[in-house]
């Protein structure tokens, strides 16, 4: 105990003294107040942050914009959509790897008696898990208007199955028919919907006879002097409400995929150790 306190005091004194020395000597790095000054190379106004923030909701010129007032969701799903595609692939591979390590499982048999914690905790859990899923669905559906989105809502909604697994037991899940195979099916459906929405503009272009990009949201203008216009786009308003093209469908599909993925991992961790030891292979 004494060694910990002495070590902590020495470490804090080092940090405070060193930063005092750095700020007096004049060599430091802090965010600069004029870091958005335009450069002179291409006639000014070409900073990346300035361009992303200006063109995220610009209804006067619909050929460069995403029509969503939330800049971070627009960058994740439209301006830099390919990064998100490969990140989803990495997450999927990690879950498949974890499933492959859980082989050699013999049948789980359910011992007699009462399972889970006391009845007070069970009643409270029945109320709060519904509330958790509602708040998470609201975060996911409003991802293009307020801070939020698919992954934020999915990981907040993964807390509810974890609570149910701890307080009731895993035998409750197996009785109701929720198995690992069902969650894997839901996750695969979510990933297929993401893939279909990503090439939806391309399919519309093939049917109509014009050309289109993959991951395209609104209309674009290509060509050296801006003469060629691609007019394929998904609707940005439905019945007067703003849905910003592909962003709304991406958020819903990602919500289901992430929630099912986390539930698979938890169901694999909660298997009792006896099922692995007696005769379950290596």
């Amino acid at each position: 105990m004494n060694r910990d306190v002495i070590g902590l005091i020495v470490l804090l004194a080092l940090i405070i003294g060193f930063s005092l020395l750095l700020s007096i000597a004049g060599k430091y790095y802090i965010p600069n107040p004029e870091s958005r000054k335009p450069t002179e190379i291409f006639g000014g106004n070409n900073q990346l942050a300035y361009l992303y923030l200006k063109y995220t909701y610009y209804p006067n010129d619909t050929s460069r914009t995403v029509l969503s007032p939330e800049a971070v969701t627009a960058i994740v799903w439209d301006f830099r959509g390919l990064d998100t595609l490969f990140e989803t692939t990495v997450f999927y591979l990690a879950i498949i790897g974890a499933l492959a390590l859980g082989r050699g499982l013999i049948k789980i048999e359910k011992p007699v008696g009462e399972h889970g914690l006391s009845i007070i905790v069970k009643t409270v859990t029945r109320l709060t898990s519904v509330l958790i899923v509602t708040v998470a669905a609201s975060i996911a559906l409003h991802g293009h208007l307020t801070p939020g989105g698919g992954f934020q809502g999915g990981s907040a909604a993964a807390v509810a199955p974890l609570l149910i697994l701890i307080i009731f037991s895993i035998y409750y899940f197996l009785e109701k028919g929720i198995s690992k195979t069902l969650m894997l099916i839901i996750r695969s459906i979510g990933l297929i919907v993401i893939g279909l929405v990503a090439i939806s503009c391309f399919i519309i272009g093939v049917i109509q006879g014009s050309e289109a990009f993959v991951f395209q949201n609104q209309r674009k203008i290509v060509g050296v002097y801006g003469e060629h216009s691609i007019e394929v786009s998904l609707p940005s308003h439905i019945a007067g409400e703003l849905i910003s093209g592909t962003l709304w469908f991406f958020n819903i599909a990602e919500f289901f995929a992430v929630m099912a993925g986390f539930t698979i991992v938890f169901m694999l961790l909660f298997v009792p150790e006896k099922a692995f030891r007696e005769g379950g292979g290596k």
Partner: protein
Amino acid sequence: MINLELLLYAFMALLSISSVIAVYLAIFEKKLVRAVVFSAIQSTLYAILYYLLMAPDIALVYIPVSVGLYPAVILILIRKTEGEEKV
């Protein structure tokens, strides 16, 4: 009254120094359940820091993942394997 920007930066500095204390206690602790609790305290301090730095999307991801899911998974792992570290 005092400048509002100065108060904001002083609060950020206080949060950073508290997080150094939490990380030191998490790494030099022999019983593993206490180390996980210190790690969750550090994650809460980081989440408040992200809110002050005007990044609400990241705070919405970080709080369920690092205060709710990670400690639960590591506590199950501790229960299934050993619970104390012998230096």
